[in-house]
């Protein structure tokens, strides 16, 4: 994470599109009038979904819609690194995981590729097609190294496959998300190694229960009083 600032160049204005507006009204409808500011994060997210990033006019508009001081929305937008404060690449926003498991599995090579293919971190590339940034753990360590591109995870990357993905995005294609090591989700390489016994699945193991686990014990008989 680095110091986050609003972009130097800002559009003159911002307005929600009719599609976004429908969603905005859905979120506003969820909160009572005097608790409107609960919708700060959803509204900023809708801004980002629409424009790709959160601009200063958009922050002002959200503050106005929620009747909160603009500094409060500014605080939220700068607090969460999820909100992009600069324009992002039109083809792809690449978020490479740089945390330990991915780093051990070669994330540093992916980062090098980003540097050479795209340019400096966290800024729009010269051609306007890409933005890349290094992020903390995205929770897909078993498929390390990985990168989140736009809304999807691209996993088990190698320098070759990653380079190919970037080239595809550059060519206007939409490469398929998921594992690039030819496995399904996070199965072991070479297919499943456990739970392969067919009897697990044919019902032959099912036996009547002698006792239900954790069932309450019958109450002991009271001691006879002498």
């Amino acid at each position: 994470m680095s110091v986050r600032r609003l972009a130097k160049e800002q559009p003159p204005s911002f307005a929600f599109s009719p599609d976004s507006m429908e969603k905005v009204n859905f979120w506003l409808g969820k909160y009572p009038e005097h608790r409107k500011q609960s919708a700060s994060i959803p509204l900023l997210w809708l801004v980002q979904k629409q424009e790709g990033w959160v601009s200063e006019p958009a922050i002002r508009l959200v503050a106005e819609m929620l009747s909160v001081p603009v500094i409060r929305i500014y605080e939220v937008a700068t607090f969460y690194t999820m909100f992009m404060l600069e324009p992002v690449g039109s083809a792809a926003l690449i978020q490479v995981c740089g945390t330990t498991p991915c780093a051990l599995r070669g994330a540093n090579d992916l980062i090098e590729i980003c540097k050479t293919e795209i340019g400096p971190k966290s800024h729009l590339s010269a051609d306007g097609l890409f933005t890349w940034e290094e992020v903390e753990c995205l929770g897909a360590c078993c498929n390390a190294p990985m990168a989140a591109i736009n809304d999807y995870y691209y996993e088990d990357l190698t320098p070759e496959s990653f380079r190919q993905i970037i080239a595809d995005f550059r060519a206007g294609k939409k490469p398929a998300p998921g594992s690039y090591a030819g496995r399904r989700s996070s199965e072991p390489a070479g297919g499943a190694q456990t739970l392969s016994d067919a009897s697990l699945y044919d019902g032959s193991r099912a036996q009547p229960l002698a006792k239900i686990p954790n069932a309450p014990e019958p109450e002991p008989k009271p001691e006879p009083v002498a």
Partner: protein
Amino acid sequence: MPTAKVNGKEIEFEAGLTVLQVAELAGEEIPRFCYHERLSIAGNCRMCLVEVKPGPPKPQASCALPAADKQEIFTNTPMVKKAREGVMEFLLINHPLDCPICDQGGECDLQDEAIGYGRDGSRYAENKRAVEEKFLGPLIKTTMTRCIQCTRCVRFSTEIAGVSEMGMISRGEDAEITSYLEEALTSELSGNLADICPVGALTHKPWAFNYRPWELTKTESVDVMDAVGSAIRVDARGGEVMRILPRVNEDINEEWISDKTRYVPDGLMRQRLDRPYVRVDGKLKPATWAEAFAAVAGRIRAVSPDKVGVIAGDLQDAESMKAAMDLFSALGVKNLDCRQDGAKLGYGPRESWLFNTTIAGIEKLDRLLLVGTNLRKEAPLVNARIRKAWLTGKLRVGVIGEHADLRYSYEYFGAGPSSLQKLVDGEGDFFKDAKGAAIVLGQGALIREDSSAILNLAAKAAGTFGMTAEGKNGFNVLHTAASRVAGLDMGFVPKDGGRHVAGMIAGAGKGEIEVLVLMGADEIDTTALGNAFVVYIGSHGDAGANRADVILPGAAYTEKPGIYVNTEGRVQIAARAVFPKGEAREDWAILRALSEHLGAKLAYDSLEQLRAKLMANHPTFGQVDYAPGAASAAGLDLGAFGEAGSLSDAVFASPIDDFYLTNPIARASVTMAECSASQAQALGRLQAAE
């Protein structure tokens, strides 16, 4: 009442207190940075750690922990000491330790606590973080690397000042305090930010690098920038007032003061009248006191008393007004007035010109109607008190007059007196079921042609809605001039056919007034005085001195002991912090000396004798630090307030155009000029956006 043990000492406390407050009750000092009595609790500096039993075996932040019955609190165990030392070490990782060049040095909470809990050396070899400076307007200087993110400034501006303009952006190590896009703060109370900042991150821009706190002589005094009479401490070095800070006075200003009160002292060193002047051939020439007195006495003796007028200005102390009244009454002069703005007050019972609810009493109200006043400009601290009461949710505020942003929401009833008439006639339900209602009449409602009728109508409203009864008085007049209530209390108003201010000015223009004595009166139209011989007694070269034929240099409010009566009728005694400039003298002494030249020697030779006579003639001046409030509310004749009459349709307008430039001292101040410009810029931006 629940009891707790603090370091083994048993103590009773009220339910609802925090552990920190209970420990303070027991006399234990707890270090703190983020906690502040008048702000909400943040609990983020962690310096107030204590050990509490029963509870988890770890240090607890005492500021945010409610105290419980039978609790044992330890503030001096080795664990507590070690925990606080740890916190201090963390706080200092990124603190620049530039105390030798820091303006907060010597009065810095972090510096003080570091003596108790700091290490003698740092264990960190890494670079400290750097933080960009922020622009917060002409008053607050920032050095953001020193910030420890206590968020006191954010809470102050949001809660007390009512401007949500400051915030903390980003997070973790990158967290920074800023205003939105570094716009200047628009509050009249912004100087308090530097006071509550526990480190040197926010300091006073006008005083940057001007002094060290231990060089200054501290004098406790009273402010005269408005009629609130805030408690201040005047810090001086040599003959110069270096700064003005607030003192705690729960009845008036709590612990805040307005920016004008605080930053005006640079005006005390500019445009000063430091020697007498006499106009010769159209030009003011320096003169000796004897020459000046001779010129004045010669003129006054040459004309009949009904051709002499005396106007007392807004910053005048009670003693000099008393001396002037005694002197000129003895000469037979009836044209005496202390109401520069022409307010129609001073003839009914004393309650008709006081803020009878008292400022602290605002917190007990549930309805408040503001008529013809913009409190943000006229009395920012009264406005802050209303906001405080409004925040509790019990107070409903109504406004008749200017539709201004007062930092709280209100119901708006209209712009002119007819709206008040409608309310009195029973329209609407604003006062329905009110238990503590009050009406505030501002000077905007009292400086008009129909002001007597408005005063009468407001008193009628107070009667109709049961504001005045045994133990409560909801009729209030808010003054803007520090001298006004004292003047009215002693009867410094024209009687027996004497001329009031407008009459004197018109008379001067027509030649019916030949000698006009201005005691610090600069807010009148000095260009309309015709050929009158103008004597100016005052401290600053402003409009009055510019027009004067003789200038008798007086002392400013920090340079003389003086009695001031605030808008509540509270008598307060200001002290001298420095001596008058050059040959200038205290105002009462000038009048005493002049009296001998006029052959009507005043009967007092010292300030003590003058005060004794003042208190003997006008007993209310003897009640120091006392506001009458509702003392006489039961038998009050509200019908005697003003006179019933017809109301005009003109809308109310605040008499104060520019909050920062209301008096000669403020107009001489560079800082106030900068504030005024910054405010105008902000206003322009606002209008452009609309």
